């Protein structure tokens, strides 16, 4: 009996160590963010991203959405111009802010809703489409308040 238990335990350990580990896919910004709706103060986008786990892919999609709004603008939306006019200058001068806001999840404060629209998995890679509604007005006000962007005017 003891021998049987030991064998079973060994087999379980071997089995779990042979299970495929999630692929470590780093975050890369893409342009795969499109506007699916907006009103005066919010914008709703669908953002695509891929990662080794679904959780990471969702996080990457959210970061991708915010980076596109901040640094690139979203075509056919109420934010066609980037919120931050000069990405290079701003990220150089405000490293701490961007680390906290993008890398450490500070953007969540301006995410009104985030929903998984689609998940395609192949060879251990999850490609997700995340639908995110963002409080654009609040985000702009916050960036103006802390001096990341100028208020309207000269």
């Amino acid at each position, binding site marked *: 009996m003891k021998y049987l238990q030991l064998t079973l335990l060994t087999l379980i350990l071997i089995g779990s160590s042979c299970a495929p580990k999630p692929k470590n896919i780093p975050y890369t910004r893409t342009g795969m963010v499109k506007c699916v709706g907006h*009103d*005066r103060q919010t914008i709703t986008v669908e953002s695509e991203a891929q990662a080794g786990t679904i959780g990471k892919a969702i996080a990457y999609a959210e970061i991708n959405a915010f980076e596109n709004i901040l640094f690139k603008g979203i075509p056919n939306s*109420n*934010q*066609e*111009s980037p919120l931050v*006019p000069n990405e290079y200058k701003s990220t150089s001068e405000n490293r701490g802010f961007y680390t906290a806001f993008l890398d450490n999840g500070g953007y969540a404060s301006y995410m009104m809703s985030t929903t998984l629209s689609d998940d395609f998995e192949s060879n251990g890679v999850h490609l997700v489409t995340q639908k995110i509604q963002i409080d654009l*007005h609040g985000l702009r006000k916050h960036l103006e308040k802390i001096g990341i962007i*100028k*208020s*309207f*005017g*000269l």
Partner: protein
Amino acid sequence: MKLKFSLFLILLSICFNVDAQDDQTKTIQPTIMAIPFTPKGQSLRTNYERNELLRIAITKVKEAFDERGVNTVDFRAKLKQLNNTEAMTEDHQTDIKNDVIALSGADIYVEVEANANYSGSGNNVTVILTAYDASSGESLANKVSTSPKFNTRNFEKLTEKAVEQEIDNLLNTMQEKFLDIVENGKTATLTVGIEDGVDYDLDTEIDDSGDLLSDIIEDWVMDNSFKNYYHVQGVTESKIIFDIVKLPLKDERGRNFRISKFAAKLKKFLQNKGIESDRSVVGSSIIVTLK
């Protein structure tokens, strides 16, 4: 010795305080007014008062500026200030728009047009928004927005939707132009003309350099414009028109740059060349008359 040192420290602190105040000088912001588009021959007041869609569109535009923390000049209030009595003829009414703009002192105006569209598949509203610099006529932003089609006669709601679709993009485009102004200077216009009866003109050589007066003036503008950026619209023997002269937002001490100072500097330069002149400044337009 102690007293001298204390006096020195006091003087030093005053100097730093003055410099700090200069650094804190707030940039003068442009004033903005939303006005209705009025075709030639129509009454501005009548068009505004009878066109509810236009009033809604203008109000939504002003609301968007309010949300960005910008106070706008109220068009209706300025209209009331004008002496627009019933005795005014139709001929005069076409000048009201220019009078309102001039009286308002607004630096930028946003012209708003709203039109209802009817079709078998639904109705919608098209809004045209155009932002101009009042003095130079430079276009700052232009947007056309059409609301979605609905089987409704609630054109007021459609007008709101049309404005809401593009107003943020209009403001964002204006902000890009403002950033360009901060970087490359604000635009002024300069007209230098010769007074009637004067015995010289702009083709006269007034000094030993052999250069014509118009060339000397142009060289001065080039040297004194921000980043040497200017554009000559045209030169005749009696007038030279610079339709673009870039001026900095701040002077060398960090204070708001005054256009009147630029005009005064030109007047002094001309005086040194033996030429008297009058100058007038309206908004960002400078007119210098050589006597």
